[in-house]
């Protein structure tokens, strides 16, 4: 091997190192954000009290940490992780920077599913049924988009338009149900729509974790295929990627993730669009790094947003959807203005 080749390899490895470093940094950031979130709350607890409450059963403090603060932080992290992940997957398979679980109607589909179950199918095991409803309806959106794409050999613009049309349809259906519902149901839907982490218990977290984390390794294994998809369906096909099958499975997996994100916490939309772009601007488009990094960035954003939402105007809680937009949008604009070139 010539020295020149060696040099190219070394430069590549240095480059890859930066991306690994970013991943490590994101994990560190998530840990810090979690720690800060754990220390913030209505009950004044010092850092050491928090740590000892975390480790030993000391009654009240232990309950506050383990039953109130930790679940909502873990849920925030999970949901952020899922939305960041689903955002990248949808953008990659549609080759469209505007794609996200919400612009494709997958989010509102899941929302309609959850609301329908809340309204029309009350009773025991609500948690699981809401999750199922959300997933089934998110699949409806995803299937329609894929079908349209296949039928008309559609461009990614057509897909986004289809998604937006679906989003409006599902939103109106949800509004209709809300209109028809009793006061009690309406309040439940309102609560749900604001996006809330207050109701996250360990049962919900376990289910959401399964829906969000299980598809992750499957999607990560396809990272090379997502990379190839960026250069067009034909090139990807010629390089041995079964594009149709990849698209179908990826959409199903991402829909499952989306459903897991929003069925217990309501509509927390913006992260799914922004986390992928923020990450992309820093580490580029290699999906082997982009998938986990965007997921981690989403988790950091949501955990931070939740902590801010709880503390900025305490004891009033600012719904997490609102905070997310407030911190996400300016940061996103900043990156858009600052960038020196087209990133997509």
């Amino acid at each position: 091997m010539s020295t020149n080749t060696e040099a190219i390899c070394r430069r590549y490895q240095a480059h890859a190192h930066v991306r690994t470093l970013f991943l490590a940094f994101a994990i560190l950031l998530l840990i810090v954000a979690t720690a800060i979130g754990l220390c913030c709350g209505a009950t004044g607890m010092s850092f050491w009290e928090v740590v000892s409450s975390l480790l030993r059963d000391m009654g009240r403090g232990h309950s506050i940490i383990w039953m109130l603060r930790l679940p909502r932080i873990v849920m925030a992290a999970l949901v952020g992780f899922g939305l960041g992940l689903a955002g990248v997957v949808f953008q990659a398979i549609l080759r469209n920077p505007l794609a996200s679980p919400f612009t494709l109607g997958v989010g509102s589909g899941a929302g309609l599913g959850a609301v329908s179950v809340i309204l029309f199918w009350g009773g025991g095991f609500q948690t699981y049924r809401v999750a199922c409803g959300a997933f089934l309806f998110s699949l409806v959106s995803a299937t329609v988009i894929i079908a349209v794409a296949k039928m008309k050999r559609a461009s990614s613009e057509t897909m986004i338009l289809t998604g937006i049309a679906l989003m409006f349809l599902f939103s109106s259906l949800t509004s209709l149900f809300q209109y028809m519902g009793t006061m009690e149901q309406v309040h439940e839907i309102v609560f749900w729509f604001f996006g809330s982490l207050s109701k996250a218990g360990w049962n919900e977290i376990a289910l959401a974790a399964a829906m969000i984390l299980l598809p992750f390794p499957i999607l990560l294994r396809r990272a090379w295929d997502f990379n190839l998809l960026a250069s067009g369906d034909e090139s990807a096909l010629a390089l041995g990627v079964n594009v149709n099958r990849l698209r179908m499975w990826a959409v199903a997996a991402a829909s499952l993730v989306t459903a897991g994100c929003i069925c217990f916490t309501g509509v927390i939309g913006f992260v799914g669009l922004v986390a992928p772009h923020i990450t992309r601007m820093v580490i580029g488009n290699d999906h082997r790094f982009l998938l986990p990094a965007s997921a981690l960035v989403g988790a950091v954003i949501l955990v931070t947003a939740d902590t801010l939402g709880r503390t900025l105007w305490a004891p009033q809680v600012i719904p997490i959807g609102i905070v997310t937009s407030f911190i996400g949008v300016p940061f996103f604009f900043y990156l858009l203005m600052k960038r020196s070139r087209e990133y997509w």
Partner: protein
Amino acid sequence: MLQAINLVFDYNGARVLESVGASVEKGCILSIVGPNGVGKTTLLKCIAGILRPAGGSVLIEDRDTFGMPRKELAKHLGYVAQNMPVRFSMTVFDTVLAGRRPYLAWRPSRKDLERTAKIIEEMNLADLAMRDMDRLSGGQAQKVLLARALAQDTRYLLLDEPTSSLDLRHQLEMLEVIATLVKSKGIGAMMAMHDLNLAARFSDTIMMLHRGRMFCSGTPSEVMTPENIREVYGVEADVRRENGHLHIQPLRCAGLNHPL
């Protein structure tokens, strides 16, 4: 030998290819020429397995490719598209490395990296290795795509108008790179070409398509005759041989009396 036999392709009920055949030996270049919309790209896509033809077959060393898994096919046949949609672009190195995909585990092996680096060096892309694709000129990007197809380590290459959107200098450079590779590595290449002079100069054989059918094929001097060009392109042309090269000079549209 890469061989396409009696390919038939319909699009929206209209026949685009009518029983077209083509073949190329290792170490040879076959150029497919013909006016716009005649089915050059469709033919290449059918051979590459991107489009599924309604009839006919494609053989690589007498093995039918249609039953082959895609990943397997990608080890035998590389395809370079006319242009790449630039969205979510990666670095040059990552792009070329992606060509190793048929061989790649999730984490590229030392061998994959070395192979990629070697191709980048051979293609004179070393300075650009860590640059993002969307910051390359058209010629550079085209070279990277060719490099990616080379990274596939295939015996045959399909090139869809490799010189489109390149300036004169880069057209020549690109074709010289291709010709060198074909000869030195013994690769068989099929190219869709627009420029008849360049096609005549760099091809071992030329196939002329006309209305979805093969009009004629053979050596450049057999195919590039004023009669053929008039029939297929509707253009009066002057064909001369100088210094061992064919020169095709289009004069006027057939049926018109004033020169172009």
